[in-house]
């Protein structure tokens, strides 16, 4: 496939800045990872601890929700507003989540066994 895009070489200074910027972004990714591990530990600990299930269940669900948003926006870069057609991507992902919610609603309320 032919392309018209031309790639300009970075100067020495630009290249150093580019690498430093990438390293800084990677450090923030590692921080996100540390938060995920912490949330996972809290989730498992609260399930093992002798708390009321009615409290623990929504709590661990909330932690899972936070972790998923971290995965999507930090690790999978949905936060990058300049990414190609990011609006379409967000629309489909959140649309999928909305449809997913209707499944849960339906299977847990309207259907009974």
């Amino acid at each position, binding site marked *: *496939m*032919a*392309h*018209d*895009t*031309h*790639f*300009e*070489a*970075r100067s020495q200074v630009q*290249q150093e800045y*580019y*690498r430093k910027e*990438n390293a800084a*972004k*990677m450090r923030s*990714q*590692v921080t996100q*990872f540390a938060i*995920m*591990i912490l949330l*996972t530990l809290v*989730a*498992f600990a609260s*399930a*093992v601890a002798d708390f009321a*299930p009615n409290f*623990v*269940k929504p709590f*661990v*669900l909330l*932690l*899972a929700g936070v*972790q*998923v948003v971290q*995965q*999507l926006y930090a*690790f*999978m870069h949905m936060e990058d507003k300049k*990414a*190609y*057609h990011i609006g*379409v*991507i967000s629309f*489909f*992902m959140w*649309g*999928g*989540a909305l*449809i*997913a*919610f209707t*499944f*849960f609603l*339906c*299977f*847990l309320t309207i*259907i009974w*066994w």
Partner: protein
Amino acid sequence: MDLNTKFTPQNWPEHAEQATMEGKNKFVGFWIFLSCEVVLFASLFATYLALKDSGPAGMDLAKYSTKALYELPLAFAMTMILLTSSLTSVYAMYHMKNFNFKGVQTWMGITVILGLCFLGLEIYEFYHYVHAGFGYRHSAFSSAFFTLVGTHGLHVIIGLVWISCLIFRNMKRGLNLYNAPKYFVASLYWHFIDVVWVFIFTVVYLMGVLG
């Protein structure tokens, strides 16, 4: 520009995976595919929640219920392994940005090894359940459980085969605009596997042991 053009760290584009029209299309197309996967897994999760602990009349709930079956230490180990493999694929993409092909291959390789460890534990878990009499046809609960967790396991297998193929096929090619989008979408897929697992360990295992 030819897809096989040789690059240097200086002229390697910042978003190499989206530098060509093919890369851009792959990027958006793959995200749309992932949104469909969200719906697929939602249906399996909803089915599992509706059917858990249900089965034929007289099913021994003291032996075959979420509370009696699940073991948290195993689920915890699997979770840690899979979360770590998500970080290693982030490292691979970091090295891709810096045009360090060796780094990409190494971290993708570590991701595959961690994925294999995860898969091994999952197979052990299934084997253990089947030997305890909790097979696929045991009850509505068992079939919903195996379908949900098994579909995730199938995704892990597909991801492992996919990333391994990428590593071997591009061994001598080096990094270029032809394979950068391929590595990128494979890493997206691997993160998505982790997204699903976060819900599995929460909804199936943690909420399961709580009854």
